[in-house]
């Protein structure tokens, strides 16, 4: 056992002496590993970032909210079966709330109608286009996960009275007012004046598709007054226990069928959507991206590994006589095997550390240049890339090192 420790120490000493003696060659070989590790770890950070983006986006939807809508999320093939469904009416939410009140121990807490359309928001001379305008009730405050950076949501009185007040998303408040507080200012929503009573703090965009910060929230009654609710609405239902989503969903379907007065055996003419189902749809896509990405970047690491294998073969060939001498002096097979394996692993580790440092720099640079880009550098990435480097070294160094360990000492000593 102590002999093995001494042999290992000696092998590391020899390996680093060898790398130092062949600097250019070692650097070029390590470069292959560096590129491979950078590619794989960058892919890792990108996947980590996408994953984080997905999680953040899904959290915006809320994991305790069910969405009653005409269409299921994610699209359908048999669209004709859905097109003739009646639109969801804001009134359905009131009926739903009555059903919930009548149900003992209901898993549903409250149903909130949300109508929406795209509008422009004008403040003085400044105009923001494509702002998603939501018309909803005062119960909306019980659903949302975000905080208010300023002000508040409209209250019950304002909501029922359809007062022209609005709550702005962060970006809508930021752009036209440029740092000034928009509270109590008047903005024009599609030409109608509204008083700003609150600003929601920054939330980010959902999968980069649409921004939660690009919203204006107004009372449903005001929405009904100025815009149309004929295109239908969405009912968001908060549930009491997010660990019992499936049961809550069943209860909601039953309640909604009562609201719609659907007959037994009749198919639901609405859909209950939830973030979990969305996640189930997104996960395979995410995994596909991860798999394809890692495979493609893995190829560059594979090329690096071939470089290591090649250089180890060269090293064995060059030092055949030395191997013969060492064997004559009593080196066992494992001694020679370990010596060349350690040499290959050392080059890989140097490449791995350099690659990781490079990745870290790149991630910082990308993060600074494009804050929206989801990149994530983690400690586990450090361990994974070190493990990958070591495994690469062992796998690519094994064949030449094994060959060296099996050399006949007589032949090796005679080699010139």
């Amino acid at each position, binding site marked *: 056992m*102590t*002999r093995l420790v*001494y*042999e290992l120490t*000696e092998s590391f000493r020899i390996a680093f*002496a*060898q790398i130092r*003696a062949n600097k250019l060659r070692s650097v070029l070989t390590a470069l292959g590993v560096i590129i491979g590790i950078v590619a794989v770890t960058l892919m890792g950070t990108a996947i980590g970032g996408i994953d984080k983006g997905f999680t953040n986006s899904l959290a915006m939807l809320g994991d305790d909210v069910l969405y009653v809508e005409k269409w299921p999320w994610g699209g359908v093939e048999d669209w004709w079966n859905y097109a003739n469904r009646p639109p969801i009416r804001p009134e359905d939410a009131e009926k739903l709330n009555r059903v919930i009140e009548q149900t003992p121990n209901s898993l549903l807490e409250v149903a909130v109608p949300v109508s929406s359309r795209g509008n422009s928001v004008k403040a003085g001379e400044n105009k923001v286009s494509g702002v998603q305008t939501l018309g909803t009730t005062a119960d909306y405050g019980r659903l949302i996960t975000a905080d208010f950076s300023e002000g508040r949501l409209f209250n019950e009185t304002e909501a029922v009275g359809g007062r022209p007040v609005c709550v702005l998303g962060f970006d809508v408040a930021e752009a036209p007012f440029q740092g000034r507080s928009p509270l109590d200012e008047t903005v024009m929503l599609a030409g109608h004046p509204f008083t700003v009573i609150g600003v929601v703090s920054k939330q980010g965009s959902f999968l980069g598709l649409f921004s939660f910060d690009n919203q204006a929230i107004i009372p449903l009654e005001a929405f009904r007054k100025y815009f149309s609710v004929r295109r239908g609405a969405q009912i968001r239902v908060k549930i009491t226990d997010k660990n019992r989503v499936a049961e809550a969903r069943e209860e909601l379907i039953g309640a909604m069928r009562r609201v719609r007065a659907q007959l037994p055996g009749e198919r639901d003419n609405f859909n209950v959507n939830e973030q979990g189902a969305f996640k189930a749809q997104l996960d395979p896509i995410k995994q596909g991206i991860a798999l394809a990405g890692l495979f493609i970047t893995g190829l560059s690491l594979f090329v690096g590994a071939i470089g290591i294998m090649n250089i180890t073969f060269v090293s064995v060939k060059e030092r055949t*006589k*030395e191997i*013969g*001498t*060492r*064997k*004559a*002096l*009593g*080196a*066992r*097979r*494992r*001694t020679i095997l370990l010596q060349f394996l350690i040499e290959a692993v050392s080059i890989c580790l140097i490449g791995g550390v350099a690659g990781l440092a490079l990745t870290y720099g790149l991630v910082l640079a990308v993060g600074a240049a494009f804050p929206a880009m989801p990149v994530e550098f983690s400690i586990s990435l450090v361990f994974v890339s070190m493990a990958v480097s070591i495994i690469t070294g062992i796998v690519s160094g094994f064949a030449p090192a094994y060959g060296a360990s099996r050399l006949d*000492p*007589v032949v090796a*000593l005679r080699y010139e």
Partner: protein
Amino acid sequence: MSPSLAPELAGRVTRPSGPLVIDIAGVTKLYKMGEEIIHALRGVSVQIHRNEYLAIMGPSGSGKSTLMNMLGCLDTPTAGRYEFNGKNVATMVDDELADIRNREIGFVFQTFNLLPRSTALANVELPLIYAGYSPSERRERAIHTLENVGLGSRLHHKPNELSGGQRQRVAIARALVNKPSIILADEPTGNLDSKTGVEIMALFEQLYAQGNTLIVVTHEEDIARHARRIVRLRDGLIESDGPVG
């Protein structure tokens, strides 16, 4: 008298009183070179005792190198018996042979075979690493051995900073450091000028006087005459085996 010795040679072999180290009897070695089979050794028997000084001579192709590889446990015989300190070497596997070489045999090569990027001290320590000695023990023994061959002032020089004679002294120190049963030298003066060669042979004389067992393989009569006994090979057989005189 060993019954395995050829009768016509038995009487001429000098027999020192020391214990038997090497006992080779009826050893043959075949090599396959493509289609051709080469009989490098055709039945060789040699006994070597502790504190003998032996020279092995013979022209190229005589089987001299093959016998040396066999004696050095670098190779095993095709047939015949080989016992080293009473242990059967003929049937040993690679790693067992490596351990025998490490502990029992000190090699001195014609081309020195030092590790170019290691100091004299590190070169001499190498066999001790394989033997499992601790760093401090290694250092102490290596320094002592280098001092014994007259290189106490050259411990931290690399081979390219040493003369040919000094390099061969480092190699001899490396061969001695593990206190082996035999020193096996293959043309030890072949790469040295004659003056340095004489110095090396004087060092061998000194080692012999200290009780070491020396086997020198050479084709030079002058070098062989330093030994006390000469074994001459021809065509894979022992031609003669007797004291120098």
